[in-house]
Structures are given as structure tokens and as C-alpha cells.
């Protein structure tokens, strides 16, 4: 997030797109509810009539995967009606003229044919966001899990740059991260493009720095993403070390994942449970869990916080870092002589420019949001206050593209996937916590009641859901949350492995899968099948 969580009750206009915040980030959503009570206005764009939509002043039920068209048209209206921030554009951005010209063809009428939202509503949303003094954008995976995920994010940046909604309280571009340390995983360099602290691996200066540190030659080009690595299992990739990820269930195209991992010569998994992925490993190491480990995690607002141990791990389970260090030492790797999480974190701070001003003791009270580039630095709650990372903000000339697969005679329905309040990811945690089943005990497919009738289905009975990659059986749930022609389910329940269906395409830049769009067919089961399914 460019802005802190505490800013969320301060905007005049809130724009939520591709975020089901009341279910996926419920505590953050309470701040939005307070902002609305205070009088803030809210625009919500989401194919499903989620709870946020019910609270919105303008609700845009866009067709799945049509975000870019909506955002281009909103920018078009803002410029047409002279609601853009001339001073901000002049002082803080580059090449705006080209962008303003680019926008001229993307009228709300044009966008309406793609998004299936009335042009008048697009106008209303644009004017609301454009006229607000403090406009804040919040998004989640509904923006990024598309073949055009990067285009979607850049379209949001374009809107914020156009209206000067960056670098001030109550504004910003705010992605809500989904896991408690997913921000930290990237911060510390567990990505193919960056050393710790976003030091680019293809930057000669960084390369020289880490070659000196590691005492070895380093590749000067980026590594490959996990998606590519899985594609190359058995042909170029032959061994994997996986820590704390149930790849087989959480990733798109499950059959492909299973095939990939089974083609390895060597698979080592570190986890707290014998997950579906761990069951495929040659060696499984037992890790200590939340409440059993000291460590650090970084939240969605870049706040660096301490995790603390309260109880001992079971049996011989050990902290992940200890396991990785032991393995490294047995392979003769140098530099793994740590004695504690504190040692490791302090070393990280010493080589990471965004953490330079931090150390284990300093973050004891969770006061710091990175970057804290030097000792004594107070941290940075709001990014881009005076300058962008690269100096001036760049508008991107984005164009709308269709999803990787679009509906057809064979697969006439849009499936979009996501999460539910009571279940977390593949339920390795929530599925093993007493009481959660009382609230949510099984998966269902949310279908508009009229579609349930039109497709010959029965509410609460099982149906078959098929895509070009496979099919699953799932219980029907008639609900107005789904629009006509679009169905929804989550990937949380292993007995409804919906990621058998997904994986139609990937963003060419980030390799993020298009989990939010998958054309499917929905059919009733015949009598003998439904008896077996029930």
C-alpha cells in the first residue's frame, strides 16, 4: 500500500476494485465502514454483488476481466470534464500529453459494450473519483490475477496520477496483500528479480555487491518465475526446495502441477502438515508454526512486526530458517552460521536499503513502515510524498485485451474464483480449527437463481462444472451475489479442487495466472451421479 491502514477512514472518495475486503481483509474493511459513516463516498467495481457493493454509492458490476476498459473510460471522462489535476501532472509526471491523447477514443459508450455496465454509471464513477479532493484506490487479486494484471495495475496508477491522488493522506494506490508475510517474502529477496530490499539482480552494482558478499560469481540476469519453473520440471528443473506452500492445491491447473512435481528427481518440502504437496516429496521436514517461532513479518502497509514464540513446537519440529541453514551447511555453503532469528534479521537490515534504519530491537513495538533508509529514520507511512522512486510518475498507454479464454458454445459461463471469510487458502489451518466447520463446512458454486432455473439445476444439489482442462462436482447455491452468466467458487476445499479448471492464461510480465476468469459449462448431474456425489 502506498498509504497506511490508518488512512483508510480519511478519503473523500473510496474506489474499491477487485477486492472482496469484508471477507478477505475484514479488519481493514471496518475502517472503510467508518469512512462511509463519516460521509465518504464509495465506488465499487466487482462482477459479484459482494457486501462492499451493497454499501457503495456507485456500484459497477463489470464483466470479469473487463477492468482496463472501465478504467480507460473513467480516465477519459476525467480529462473530458477537466477534472484532472493540472499542477500535479505538470510537476510530478512525464509524457502526459501522449496519454491524454491516447484516452480520446475510450468513451464510456465504448467501455459499456465491453464491461456490460451502463455508460451513465461509468460517467458517475469517473466524476465522483475525479472531483474528490482525497481519492483512495484499494484493490486485491481481482486486479492482478488476470492475463492483463499489470495493465490493470497501471490503469489504476494512471487514474491516481491524473487526479493527483498520490503522496498525500487519505489517497493512494493500495493493494491489500493476502498473506501475513507475502510483503516480507518479496522484501527480503525471495523473488527471481531482486536481491533483498529490491536491489535488482540485473543491476551491475547490485551484482558486484552480492558477489563480494557471497564470495562467488552471480548470474547477471533474472531467474525464472515459479510458473515457468513448474513448466520446466523434468526438462530443465530437476530438484526443488519448497517451504510452506501447498503448490498442488493453491496453484492453477492442478494436474499440470502434480505432473510437474512428480517429474522431479528430488523434491524437499518444509511444512507444518503433510499437505498434498508434501505427500509428493522425497524428504519432508517438520517446521515450527505461528505461536512457536520468533521472527519478523511485514504487513500490507509495509509495517515490519515481530512474531513471538508462546509455546514449543511439536516433537522435533524446528524453525524454517534452522532447517534451511542445516541443509545449506551439509552442502558446504558458507554464511549460514546463524544462531537465532535475530541474527538473521539484523544481517538482512545491514544489506537491505529499505531496512537499513531498522534492527530486531528497534521494531519491538511495530512502529516502523519501510523504507527506513538510515539509522534514526522514522519510517515512511506514506510513499511518494515528494518524489516517485524513479523521479517522475509515468503514464502507461494501456489498451484493453480479452481474457485468455472467452465464453463459447462449449463453455458459455464465466467462472471467477476467490476466497470466503471463514476459510483461508487451502484450509490447512482453518480446516483444522474447531468450530470453523459450523460456519462453513463445504464448498458451493454461487449461481444467480434465474440461471439455476434456466440451466435445469436444483439449489443445494450437486452439479458438474467443467472447463477445457477438467471438471469438478460441486453443490449449487442460488444467490443474487452472482450476476446472470457468471458463477463463483473458492479453491479452499480439497474435495472441490477448482484449480483443476483454472489456468487458461498468465500475465506475460508477472506470470500471474488468470484465476479470476475461466469459461466453464455447468450441468446437472443425472440421478445416479447425484446420489453418489451427495
Amino acid at each position: 500500500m502506498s498509504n497506511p491502514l490508518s488512512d483508510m477512514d480519511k478519503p473523500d472518495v473510496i474506489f474499491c476494485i477487485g477486492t472482496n475486503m469484508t471477507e478477505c481483509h475484514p479488519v481493514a474493511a471496518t475502517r472503510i465502514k467508518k469512512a462511509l459513516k463519516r460521509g465518504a463516498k464509495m465506488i465499487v467495481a466487482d462482477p459479484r454483488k459482494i457486501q462492499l457493493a451493497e454499501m457503495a454509492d456507485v456500484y459497477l458490476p463489470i464483466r470479469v476481466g473487463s477492468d482496463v476498459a472501465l478504467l480507460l473510460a473513467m480516465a477519459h471522462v476525467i480529462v473530458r470534464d477537466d477534472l484532472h489535476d493540472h499542477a500535479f501532472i505538470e510537476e510530478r509526471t512525464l509524457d502526459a500529453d501522449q496519454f491524454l491523447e491516447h484516452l480520446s477514443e475510450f468513451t464510456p459508450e465504448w467501455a459499456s459494450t465491453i464491461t456490460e455496465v451502463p455508460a451513465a454509471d461509468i460517467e458517475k464513477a469517473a466524476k465522483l473519483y475525479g472531483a474528490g479532493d482525497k481519492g483512495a484506490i484499494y484493490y486485491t487479486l481481482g486486479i492482478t490475477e488476470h492475463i492483463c494484471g499489470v495493465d490493470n495495475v497501471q490503469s489504476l496508477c494512471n487514474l491516481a496520477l491524473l487526479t493527483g491522488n498520490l503522496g498525500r493522506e487519505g489517497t493512494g494506490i493500495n493493494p491489500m496483500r493476502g498473506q501475513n508475510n507475502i510483503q516480507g517474502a518479496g522484501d527480503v529477496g525471495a523473488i527471481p528479480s531482486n536481491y533483498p530490499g529490491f536491489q535488482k539482480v540485473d543491476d551491475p552494482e547490485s551484482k558486484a555487491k552480492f558477489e563480494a558478499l557471497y564470495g562467488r560469481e552471480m548470474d547477471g540476469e533474472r531467474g525464472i518465475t515459479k510458473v515457468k519453473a513448474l513448466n520446466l520440471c523434468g526438462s530443465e528443473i530437476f530438484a526443488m526446495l519448497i517451504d510452506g506452500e501447498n503448490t498442488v492445491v493453491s496453484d492453477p491447473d492442478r494436474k499440470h502441477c502434480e505432473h510437474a512435481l512428480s517429474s522431479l528427481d528430488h523434491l524437499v518440502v518444509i511444512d507444518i502438515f503433510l499437505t498434498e504437496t508434501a505427500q509428493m516429496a522425497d524428504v519432508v521436514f517438520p517446521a515450527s508454526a505461528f505461536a512457536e517461532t520468533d521472527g519478523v513479518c511485514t504487513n500490507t502497509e509495509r509495517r515490519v512486526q515481530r512474531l513471538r514464540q508462546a509455546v514449543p513446537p511439536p516433537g522435533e519440529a524446528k524453525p524454517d530458517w534452522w532447517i534451511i541453514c542445516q541443509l545449506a551447511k551439509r552442502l558446504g555453503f558458507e554464511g549460514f552460521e546463524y544462531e537465532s532469528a535475530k541474527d538473521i534479521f539484523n544481517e538482512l537490515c545491514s544489506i537491505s536499503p529499505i531496512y537499513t534504519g531498522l534492527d530486531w530491537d528497534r521494531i519491538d513495538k511495530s512502529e516502523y513502515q519501510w523504507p527506513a533508509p538510515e539509522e534514526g529514520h522514522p519510517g515512511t507511512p506514506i510513499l511518494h510524498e515528494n518524489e516517485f522512486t524513479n523521479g517522475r510518475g509515468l503514464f502507461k498507454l494501456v489498451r484493453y485485451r480479452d481474457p485468455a479464454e472467452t465464453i463459447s458454445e462449449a463453455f458459455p459461463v464465466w467462472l471467477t474464483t476467490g476466497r470466503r471469510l471463514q476459510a483461508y487458502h487451502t484450509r490447512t489451518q482453518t480446516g483444522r480449527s474447531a468450530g470453523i466447520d459450523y460456519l462453513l463446512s463445504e464448498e458451493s458454486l454461487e449461481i444467480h437463481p434465474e440461471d439455476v432455473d434456466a440451466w435445469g439445476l436444483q439449489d443445494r444439489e450437486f452439479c458438474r462444472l467443467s472447463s477445457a482442462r477438467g471438471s469438478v462436482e460441486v453443490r449449487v447455491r442460488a444467490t443474487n451475489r452472482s450476476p446472470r452468466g457468471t458463477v463463483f467458487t473458492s479453491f479452499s476445499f480439497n474435495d472441490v479442487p477448482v484449480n483443476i479448471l483454472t489456468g487458461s492464461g498468465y500475465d506475460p510480465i508477472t506470470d500471474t495466472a488468470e484465476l479470476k476468469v475461466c469459461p466453464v459449462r455447468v450441468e446437472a448431474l443425472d440421478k445416479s451421479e447425484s446420489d453418489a456425489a451427495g
Partner: protein
Amino acid sequence: MSSNGIQHQLILDGEEVNFSAGETLYEIAERHRKEIPTLCYDPRLEPFGACRLCVVELEGARNPVASCTTKATAGMVVKTQSEPVEKYRKTLLEMVVSENREVEVDPLRGYASQELGKLTDRYQARTGRFKGAQSGQLHATDDNPFIFRDYDLCISCNRCVRVCAEQEGDHAIAAMGRGFHKQITTEFNGLLKDSSCTFCGQCVQTCPTGALADKKALRAAELPEPLQKTRSVCPYCGVGCSVDLLSKGEKLVGIHPAMDGPANEGALCVKGQFAFDFVQHTDRLSMPMVRGDDGELHETDWDTALDRAADGFAKTLKKHGRHSIYGIASGRTPSEANYTMQQFIRRGYGTHYIDNCSRA
């Protein structure tokens, strides 16, 4: 709260103190550590003025005033601890206590559950001077696994109703009836699961008497070890709510929201509040495992497993080169795990064949 930062003055227990426009007498007294007793007050909520315990003497006013709802004005003369006020507070507490089945409750019931008991001790109010009828009745049929609705202990402070409305925006619960017939309930006096309740647990944690109680934590009521609190961060989404882990001996027994957590300021959701049993679940891996010749995974010791794991990487390196080995880190493990993982790949093999689960 300040208007243009202008400071005004009033006299608090004989001392001149500054305040900003909009501050209440309670807020000013709190700032000066006056320890005014309260039951219906939660600093996160709008003042309610129901319990009357926070009354103070205000010069010129005929009766004591509720400090939580009285805005300060310049020149006020306020006494927080005079004898009449203390006597008034004691009498009020005696009446509150007379309505309840019990006053001392297990701290596992909730974060604020000890408030009434502590005040009763402080004012020695367990005198039995009043024979009050009981207001509020236990909701015995609500079988939800999280929230015990023991309204026998309810004192109608409305903190639960207000936290649900003001903090959560859910409006799942309300007060019904008046006087001794007052009852906190949901629509049609039904089950919480049939209301708009999301089981975030906020009502439980703000309840000052334990009338709303954490059923999961109470499973550990009989454990003899002392209750410990350890500050940590919720293991679920990226909001990063601060929590206090409750443990007895080696057992994780519950979670409290951290009221001073910067991300959550005391809030949690159903997962963060109640979904912690996975930690000490019998399915947890407790021994390293290696795949045997029979194709199955077998438990073994660390040495054997580490040797086997290292051997596999060494062989792969020899046979297929350093670009044949890949590491996947996690968004759920601490940064130290992710840092050592990327260092394992980078320092071990000189490549950047490392990623995490953020792409799916």
C-alpha cells in the same frame, strides 16, 4: 480533537491542567492518571453515559456529572475523588453486583472480563446490601462454538451492541426491553449464526463482566498452569493484526486482540480470533520423513533426513548443473525463512531461481 491546537485550562483536583476543545472530562482525567472507574466505557467507542460510575463533582452543578459524556469548558473546577462521589460509585456498584450470578469470572472469558470484579474489589462492593432481581437471561440454545451468551452476567452496558455497530459496522445485536427486562439479543431473539454476526469476537472482548465469553478459550479453564500472554501477529491475511497469544504451560489456549496493535487497534476477524487450533493439531508433523524403497514416507531422525535432502541436491547439481535447482519460499513463513531460502539458492548456486507464492 484540538481546534487549531489552542489550549484551554480547567482545575482538576486542585491543579490547573490544559485541554483541547472537544475533550471530555474523562479523557482529560485519564491523561492525568486519575483512575476514574468505568464499566460502559471503551475508548474506541462513542461515550454512552449509562453506568454512571465515572461521575465527578463539578463546581456549580447540583449533581455529579458523568465525566465520559461531559465536554470540558474553560474554567471548570472538577473533583474526581471526593468522598460523596466515591460513596455514590460504591452504591452503584453494589446495585450492579446484586444483579449478577457471579462477579469473579475466569479471565479466559475475554479481554475485558475482569473489569467488574476488579472494581468490586476496589470499592469493597460485595456487601449484599441490595437484593436485586436478575436482568438478562442466559441464551442456552445458541450452540455456536465460539461465543457463550451467558447473559445472567449482563449489566446492560451496551458495549457489545456499540462495538458491533460502531467498530464492525455489522449491527448484529441490539438491546430489547427496559429495566430488569432488558436483554441483549439478535433479531427475533435467535441464534447469532442467523444474524449478521461474523463471529469476529469483538463483543466478547469488550464485555466487562464475561457475560459474553470465548467458548474456545474456556476449554482450558481447568488447566492448572498460570495464563501467559505473548504479543505476536495474526497468521492469516496481510493486514497484520497484532494479537496476544494466550497460553497455559505448553498449551495455546486462545487469542486476544491487541488494543494497541497499529494495524487493527483491537479488532480481529473470525479467523484471527478463533482459528488457532491448527497449531497444536494432532496432524502436525513432528518428525522428519524420507521416502523409502517401498515408495512411502517414513519418519526418521534429522541427520538421516538432512543427509538425504543434501545428497539429492548435490546429485542434481552434478548431473544437471546449477540452473536445475529451484526454491519456493512462502508468504506465510517469517522473513528469516524467506531470507535464508533466497540465500540458499543465491549463495549456493549463484542463480536467481527463487520465488514465493505471490503469483497464485
